[in-house]
């Protein structure tokens, strides 16, 4: 235990001083690692801890991104305030999807597929309704002041992403310590047994998806502020859903550090394939190659290593 805390402290200290020595390129990579770990953790809380595998988590991401952007661009809200509204919107959408799906008794694959369909409905709506400007997407006017949630120096986005990641780790850590987390794990392992033990399965599942939705929406706003642009396929595209699921599954679903490890692994694979591509010109297309590797890893991990890469660090099996 003490060793773990010391390791976490050292890791955090390294992450804090890292950008002081690294070039902008690496600061940006670090930012993405923490950002993806954060949205991955939002997936992991529902998909990993509570076992509610979602294929359409991007619906919360896009809800957050569009809520804060519309409030800011169309209604002149301060983006920090709009960020809070975005989280609220994400929570509401999470609550709504959870109530509808779990009231209907959807589990497992059926829940995964209905979340996919919800994300698709939101994508089509964002493409069609006037207040999102449809397929053109929305631009946020550049005005680089901290009060505007825009920073001249990318280092501040890096620290913000790091802070989000740390908060998400703390939330996951709390879930391994408190009764809410224990109830979620009970539901994941055997929903009927959990109900027999007196757990209000429906209420707990609704709660966790609401929390997960709010977190993921926070990531959406962060993304919009960083790139100052969103469109329906960025905000509601299936790729981001898959990314969140992948980093959690590969790193270790239902573990505290799973999404972070998965996010680091994704980045390493990306950079290695990028390096490979510069040597072997036939592999000039980097993105698909790293996704091929990631897809293979997903298959192998689901089949052979249910705790993901985290399972490799564990000395004792979880169900001993």
């Amino acid at each position, binding site marked *: 235990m003490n060793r773990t805390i010391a390791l976490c402290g050292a890791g955090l200290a390294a992450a804090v001083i890292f950008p002081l020595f690294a070039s902008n390129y690496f600061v940006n990579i670090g930012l993405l690692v923490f950002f993806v770990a954060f949205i991955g953790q939002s997936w992991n809380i529902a998909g990993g801890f509570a076992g509610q595998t979602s294929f359409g988590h991007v619906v919360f991401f896009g809800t957050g991104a569009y809520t804060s952007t519309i409030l800011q661009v169309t209604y002149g809200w301060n983006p920090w305030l709009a960020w809070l509204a975005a989280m609220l919107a994400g929570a509401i959408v999470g609550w709504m999807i959870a109530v509808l799906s779990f009231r209907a008794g959807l589990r497992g694959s059926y829940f995964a597929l209905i979340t996919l369909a919800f994300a*698709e409905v939101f994508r089509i709506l964002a493409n069609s309704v006037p207040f999102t400007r449809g397929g053109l997407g929305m631009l946020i006017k550049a005005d680089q002041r901290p009060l505007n949630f825009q920073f001249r120096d990318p280092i501040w986005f890096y620290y913000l992403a790091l802070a989000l990641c740390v908060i998400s780790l703390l939330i996951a850590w709390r879930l391994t310590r408190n009764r809410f987390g224990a109830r979620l794990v009970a539901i994941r392992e055997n929903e009927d047994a959990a109900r027999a033990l007196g757990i209000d399965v429906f209420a707990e599942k609704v709660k966790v998806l609401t929390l997960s939705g709010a977190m993921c929406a926070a990531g959406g706003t962060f993304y919009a502020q960083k790139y100052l642009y969103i469109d329906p396929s960025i905000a509601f595209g299936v790729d981001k859903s898959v990314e969140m699921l992948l980093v959690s599954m590969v790193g270790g679903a239902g573990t505290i550090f799973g999404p972070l490890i998965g996010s680091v692994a994704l980045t390493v694979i990306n950079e290695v394939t990028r390096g490979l591509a510069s040597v072997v010109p036939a592999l000039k297309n980097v993105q698909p190659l790293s996704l091929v590797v990631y*897809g293979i890893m997903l*298959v192998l991990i689901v089949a052979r290593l249910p705790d993901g890469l985290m399972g490799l660090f564990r000395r004792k099996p979880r169900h001993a």
Partner: protein
Amino acid sequence: MLDPQIIVAGVLNGLLAGGIYVLVAVGLTLIYGVLHIINFAHGSLLMLAMYAVFWLWRLVGVDPYIALPLVTAGAFVFGFVLYRLVIGRFSHGRDENILLITLGLSIVVDNIALLFFGGDTQTIDVPYAGRFVELGAAFLPLPKIISFAASLVLCVILGLYMAKSDTGKAIRAVAKERQGARLVGIDVDNIFAISYGIGIACLGAAACLLMPTFYVTPTSGHAFVLVAFTIVVLGGMGSFIGAAIGGFIIGITEALGGLFLGEQLGQIGISLIFILILLFKPTGLFGSKA
């Protein structure tokens, strides 16, 4: 209000598109009915088959209709081997895990296609592509009529095969009661692989029928995967009749959605049907139980 003749034409066009959807969905529902796995890689494998048809035409000059027996047989072998090497080994356990494995497969297949074939949209150019048949007020593209008819013929052949042949009977026995089937001496693992192969063979045939009027890109699978799931859920998971009727309903919904709501918003109908069916009648129209 739209001219009723346009609506009739829309319904007819939707019906024709539905014919192909039926073939795609029958494969998916067969795999679910027998193996109880949700094959998320269905769309990606269809995309792969469409590329096979495209390259056969581009490199060897084979007409897609002539390629049909070859691509269908090839798809069967591909599905059979894929089941034996990958899916079969991992297909026992929680159903979300199998869903995740087929998701992983679809990621691999999509990105291999992107790596080797590039992101460009590919179409094939056949002399009969521009022919139309006049039916009342509606002009219907000849290739769509051919694909509709061929798709129905193939479904009937498959239905007869399932009803009459020994393998078909064994498949139905395994779908109903796999322990019992094992007890009477059916090689259940082999039947699983054959069923998966037949499911993918349906995609091979569908690819040949689609290509004269459609295009293929590495993301083509995405367009079909939700449509196929919607049909199967609407008809009832594992039900053949359900898949057939669901296919036509979805084809018409899509055509009318496009007509009334426009190109963009029109696609929403399919997702909404999917959500509503799952929420209110998860057994679908012809499903036995959830």
